[in-house]
């Protein structure tokens, strides 16, 4: 009787923990870059014209490493589109894509098919990804208006995850 009660308590606690924890589609995780200046991202955009992360100071920038062959990237793309749309009028946050181990043509086709309208740059030697400590796509970094990295998210991000990051960063004075 006592043993059964103990098992029931443990199982109940486990269910409660699993039911109440936040959605695990993406995970905010540690990075040596947190609180430090974001490494530069610059180059020609896939759709033409120059891209430069430092020129976007004064607003949040969501630096998203993606590839067309990456299923979680396909899952998160509509969420990024929604996030970009929500911030278009105020222009207080932008998305900046970085192609990870993919051809520019495939990446451009992928972005066009999902309705992504933000600038994305190629990273042929993977050196931008290395500077950010990226292990594999999708990985997303949130850069504060002052140019510091305030979050690193692993896996497919959701628009709500990004909004939470922005709220927290604003509360901390970013």
């Amino acid at each position, binding site marked *: 009787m006592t043993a059964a009660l103990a098992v029931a308590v443990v199982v109940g606690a486990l269910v409660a923990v699993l039911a109440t924890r936040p959605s695990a589609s993406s995970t905010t995780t540690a990075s040596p870059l947190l609180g430090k200046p974001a490494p530069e991202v610059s180059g020609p955009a896939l759709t033409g014209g120059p891209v430069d992360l430092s020129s976007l100071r004064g607003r949040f920038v969501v630096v998203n490493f993606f590839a067309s062959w990456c299923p979680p990237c396909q899952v998160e793309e509509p969420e990024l589109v929604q996030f970009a749309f929500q911030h278009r009028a105020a222009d207080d946050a932008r998305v900046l894509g970085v192609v990870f181990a993919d051809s520019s043509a495939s990446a451009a086709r992928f972005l066009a098919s999902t309705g992504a309208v933000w600038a994305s740059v190629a990273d042929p030697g993977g050196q931008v990804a290395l500077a950010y*400590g990226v292990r594999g796509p999708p990985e997303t970094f949130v850069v504060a208006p002052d140019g510091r990295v305030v979050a690193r998210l692993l896996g497919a991000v959701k628009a709500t995850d990004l909004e939470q990051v922005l709220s927290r960063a604003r509360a901390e004075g970013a």
Partner: protein
Amino acid sequence: MSAQDSWEQPSEPGRPAAAASRGSARRWLPWVVMAVVLAVALVIGSGTRSGSETVSQRVDRIARDVRCPSCSGQSVAESDAPTAVAVRQLITDRVKGGRSDASIETELAHSYGSGILLRPPASGVAAVVWVVPAVAGAAGVIGLVVVFRRRRLGDGGGSGVSAEDRALVEQALR
């Protein structure tokens, strides 16, 4: 000439002293051989970092100590994953640029954290993995010295010959 004198300066010159010398040499020979082998191995091992190392050899050596960011349990020297290729390219660029090994490792750790290095750093908490074997080795050597000394003292005050044996030898030499 006393019996004691005859033991220390035998009437048949050379025989007991030579035998003792041969015994002592036999006892120390394995240790001398081991010390020589160890010294030679250290010289050969340290020689791999000599100035004659080519760029390719140096890149390979550094790459063997860097963890592939997107693989499990492989160094960037062993993997062909895109991140491993990018890290090798970064190492090659830095080596050609005249950067030191430590500076290259610091740059990678700046993005990925010290976990990117397969060889733990010799500072901070990770230094324990270097200190513990050194302390254990020193304790082992000290322990062996103490044990050998005690055994030798227990065998007859350090001479290795008991008073009874000495008396027998003196009697035979008369």
